[in-house]
């Protein structure tokens, strides 16, 4: 057991995956000497060589497209996209190639590509550095999409992603990179299945679903709610495609209430998918309409406004009040 930041936990997961399989290669901008702008790949080029930790030219379509070729040739590329907002030049390769090749070739060609993306806001960054583009990828058939929230999961999940024969988008909560926790690096890779959710806090009154950076916020909300006598069950989804609906459904059947939170904008998002699916699955167990607490349907705002975009503890608690039928900001407003 060692105490690691989330960033170091991913680093140690990458190291382990590279030790275990010589076909694992890392590709990205500034991932070599610099160790990536968040230092997630720190020291890996020194230890594994420039042929396995490859500083690429500055081109995201190039990174993903060459990863496709490497995968064709039997490699397991792990691509780093420097920031969420820079994935779009590579979007075409991801959606049109990476996602579809297994299907088109009737399984003959595997695309075991992992695409690491630091995502989300809350760090006071300039534009294109705080986005949450996960829904685009969850909406694309053929891609698996996962997001870690804590160092232990981060360590295992990056290894699971690399070991997976399907392409995986791995969303790293950048504002939690410096969160420290004990990590057991000896845990078996299948300690939990890659697509499974986790009950982060057990509760009885309402189910609060989160992933990535907002899991900690959700846990804080649960603590605050407990002070008011409300017991929240917090679910850390871990996987966004597929979503572990069995776990969410079982919880909602117990609590009768659902709140989903994410930083990404609301419309057509992960929250919408969960609200719809849970309503289909256990409509008669719901005591209130599901609530979404999300970023607004606006481009990610400048840093000085991000507190008015990002879901926080108070906005989550306000939605909890709503599903609990308690007084809340919209009481009597008809909004």
């Amino acid at each position: 057991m060692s105490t690691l930041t989330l960033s170091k936990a991913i680093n140690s997961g990458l190291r382990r995956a590279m030790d275990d399989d010589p076909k694992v290669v890392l590709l990205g901008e500034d991932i070599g000497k610099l160790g990536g702008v968040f230092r997630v790949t720190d020291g890996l080029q020194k230890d594994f060589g420039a042929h396995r930790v490859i500083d690429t030219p500055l081109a995201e379509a190039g990174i993903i497209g060459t990863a496709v070729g490497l995968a064709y040739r039997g490699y397991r590329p792990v691509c780093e996209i420097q920031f969420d907002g820079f994935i779009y030049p590579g979007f075409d390769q991801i959606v049109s190639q990476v996602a579809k090749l297994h299907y088109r070739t009737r399984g003959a060609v595997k695309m075991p590509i992992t695409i690491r993306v630091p995502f989300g806001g809350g760090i006071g960054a300039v534009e294109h550095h705080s986005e949450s583009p996960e829904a685009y990828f969850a909406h694309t058939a053929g891609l698996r999409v996962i997001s870690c929230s804590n160092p232990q999961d981060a360590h295992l999940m990056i290894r699971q992603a690399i070991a997976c024969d399907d392409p995986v988008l791995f969303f790293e909560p950048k504002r939690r990179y410096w969160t420290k926790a004990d990590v057991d690096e000896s845990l078996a890779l299948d300690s939990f299945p890659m697509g499974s959710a986790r009950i982060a806090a057990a509760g009885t009154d309402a189910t609060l679903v989160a992933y990535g950076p907002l899991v900690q916020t959700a846990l804080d909300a649960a603590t605050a709610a407990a002070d008011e006598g409300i017991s929240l069950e917090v679910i850390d989804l871990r996987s966004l495609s597929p979503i572990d609906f069995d776990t969410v459904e079982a919880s909602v059947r117990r609590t009768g209430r659902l709140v989903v939170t994410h930083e990404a904008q609301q419309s057509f998002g992960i929250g919408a998918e969960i609200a719809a699916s849970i309503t289909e699955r256990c409509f008669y167990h719901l005591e209130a309409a599901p609530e979404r607490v999300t970023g607004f349907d606006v481009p990610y705002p400048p840093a000085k406004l991000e507190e008015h975009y990002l879901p926080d503890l108070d906005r989550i608690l306000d939605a909890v009040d709503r599903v609990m039928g308690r007084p809340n900001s919209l009481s009597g407003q008809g909004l």
Partner: protein
Amino acid sequence: MTAPGEKAHPEEAKLLQLLDADGRRVPDPELERWVEDVSTDQLGALYEDMAIARRIDVEATALQRQGELGLWPPLLGQEASQIGSARALREDDFVFSSYRENGVAYCRGVGFEDILRVWRGNSGSGWDPYSINMATPQIIIGAQTLHATGYALGCQQDGVDSAAIAYFGDGATSEGDVNEAMVFAASFQAPVIFFCQNNQWAISEPVGLQARRPIAGRAPGFGIPSLRVDGNDVLAVLAATRIALDRARSGGGPTFIEAVTYRVGPHTTSDDPTRYEDSNQREDWVRRDPLARVEAHLAAAGFFSDGFRDGVKAKADDAAARLRAGCHSLKDPEPMTVFEHVYSSPHPALERQRARYTQYLATIEGGNR
């Protein structure tokens, strides 16, 4: 191994220069006729611009260190590339830049507080692009080269002789957008200038990773004439940009300019170059400083008097003071502006979110929670 008929090392594109690192005039009859009209006085003015750009940059870096700005991308060392090119432009030309061209913005007449708005986290754009004919600086590497090309096509269709100029870095030349821009510009002979500041780095990646041969050598393959210029020589940069503008205005189509310079500072204030940069390399380039050579040249011409130097310093200090004052004058944006300008007319889903959040803020402020 070379294939038959292929030269192992085709000659490197010639580096254009008019002032060497010691400030001596380098004779180049072809090039110097483009700056024949530049008097010692005017060279003094270019020097002053560079000194002010440097002072603004230093002040902004200090403001970042003091917590007033979230981030700042220094231009230190690239003053000649930015001032020499920007001073060649006409008011009706249009600039599409990256985040680093704050010296260019200064030449376009940007307000001091407007330079900082984005970096302080107040706004997505520092200025109204039409107010200074300079687009909102681009962070998505290379995207602006296509925008410049499209703008230039518009000028061409309108039958005016304005041109567009795209500023981008050596790293950007690897992006698809930049290569597509060159294809479009060449196909339609767009009046656009591709101005690449090769400052030797894309964050930690040396230029050799993006280009095995001089970057200027790439454009001719697209059918675009190319110039490789000493980017620390303000006079040569001015001349090269004038050549390109003349071609653009007279229907000759695009030009590619590689300004060979050096990023003396960090990539941004968040960067730590000690992890990747050899300090000897930086020292080498500091010896080729863009201001020092003009200073030496003006001194030799008897122009760099104490009076001149003090005058420049006073103007630079004044610019720094105005920048700092501008920074402090920026008020935090109002919360509800987060919902503004997403669309040009109301969008129902967003309006509902706005109404609910207004109500929410009122409740919070009313102390219900």
